[in-house]
């Protein structure tokens, strides 16, 4: 192997500078659980690797109060799981992040890597979409913000422009009566790729849904925000008719592929089933808050 250059800058400006200067020849390294596998398979052949974990902002978890959080893009699942305040405010996002791989993979895998790897089946992404997370991005032209669902462009592709790095995820404050949940369907009991991934985030007031967001993964080229499903839930008491309407909206949003894990028909059916199950868990959590 012709060898590569390894950089571990301490500031974001240095990282962006080096990333932009490499003009496509560099890759960002967070946990490496996708990147190193791709390099080993010869799919990724970077000339330079830019490790972002020495940049404090990338590995920080900031409690902004009222359930709002800013999470550095390179925070590992294991570190996030140890944050009691985050676990209480965003159990659905946490369970999605913690579904990524084994305990060993959790020691490294980050939500930023999961998003930027841009697999349609990335587990943390539907939960982040449901949460209404906004990502902060820094590039050669400065900072900008994007709703998380605007980042993936297709399998393995993002809307980041050359030299841009995802810095953090900002999750909004939690009104009283909030709850979120994430469920995925996999053929095994653990360590597998989602056939469908479903994130639901609800705000209830006196049993009535005041706000809802639904994120749907593994059934289209990118993770989807299913606004029709949210509309079907808002104003309802999560009665059977509302849940069925939301499930139908999820089924309608699916544009899945056939593969060894699931057929098109199966994925579409499961999307509806998971909407109902995930909403039930989110509602139960909302009731306790």
């Amino acid at each position, binding site marked *: 192997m012709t*060898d590569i*250059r390894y950089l571990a800058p301490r500031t974001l400006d240095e990282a962006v500078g080096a990333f932009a200067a490499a003009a496509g020849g560099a890759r960002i390294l967070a946990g490496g659980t996708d990147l190193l596998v791709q390099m080993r398979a010869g799919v990724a052949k970077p000339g330079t690797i830019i490790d972002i974990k020495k940049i404090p902002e990338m590995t920080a978890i900031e409690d902004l109060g009222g359930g709002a959080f800013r999470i550095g893009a390179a925070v590992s699942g294991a570190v996030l799981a140890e944050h009691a305040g985050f676990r209480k405010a965003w159990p659905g996002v946490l369970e999605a992040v913690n579904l990524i791989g*084994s*305990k*060993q993979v959790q020691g*490294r895998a980050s939500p930023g890597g999961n998003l930027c790897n841009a697999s349609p089946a990335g587990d943390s992404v539907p939960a982040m979409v449901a949460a209404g997370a906004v990502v902060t991005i820094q590039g050669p032209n400065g900072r900008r913000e994007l709703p998380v669902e605007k980042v993936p462009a297709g399998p393995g592709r993002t809307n980041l422009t050359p030299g841009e790095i995802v810095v953090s995820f900002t999750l909004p404050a939690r009104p009283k009566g909030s709850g979120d949940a994430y469920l995925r369907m996999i053929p095994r009991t653990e360590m597998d790729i989602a056939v469908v991934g479903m994130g639901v985030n609800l705000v209830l007031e006196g049993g009535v849904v005041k706000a809802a967001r639904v994120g749907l993964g593994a059934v289209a080229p990118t993770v989807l925000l299913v606004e029709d499903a949210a509309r079907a839930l808002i104003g309802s008491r999560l009665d059977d008719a509302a849940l069925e309407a939301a499930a139908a909206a999820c089924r309608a949003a699916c544009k899945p592929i056939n593969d060894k894990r699931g057929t098109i028909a199966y994925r579409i059916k499961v999307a509806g089933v998971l909407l109902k199950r995930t909403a039930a868990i989110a509602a139960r959590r909302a009731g306790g808050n």
Partner: protein
Amino acid sequence: MAKIHVSTTVNGEPVEFLCDASSSMLDALRGPLGLTGTKEGCGTGDCGACSITVDGRLMCSCLMLAVEAEGHEIATIEGMAQGDKLHPLQQKFLEMAALQCGICTPGVLISARSLLEKNPDPTEEEVRFGLAGNLCRCTGYDKIVRAVLETAAEMREAAR
């Protein structure tokens, strides 16, 4: 390209080594550091044979670059026994024959120790989920799971 110099701590001892930027931590352990207890099964994060801890956290050494070890604390299977005294997990794996060919065993032990540090009283299901990142082609897992549960019970008893 010139080799990179890395200073780190392995099993409590400060060490230094030279590596390529693309070398994995697993390559460094088994190569310049001469610690061959950590095994390579897949090289892609699936089997857990290469499990180590970094600053106390469980990771696959095949999915970490050797240069990333700079300034961190690495723990491998070689540091699990205290001299001649085996760790209770190691002792129990021998007693209960929780291994056959043994290639997965160092990784399983590192992972089981990490599990028991976080959860000294796991259920069988928690042990099975906790060790889901460690594949074993020989034992069918049952002996491994029973040995971990038994060790956990004895360690709790000893800590009383």
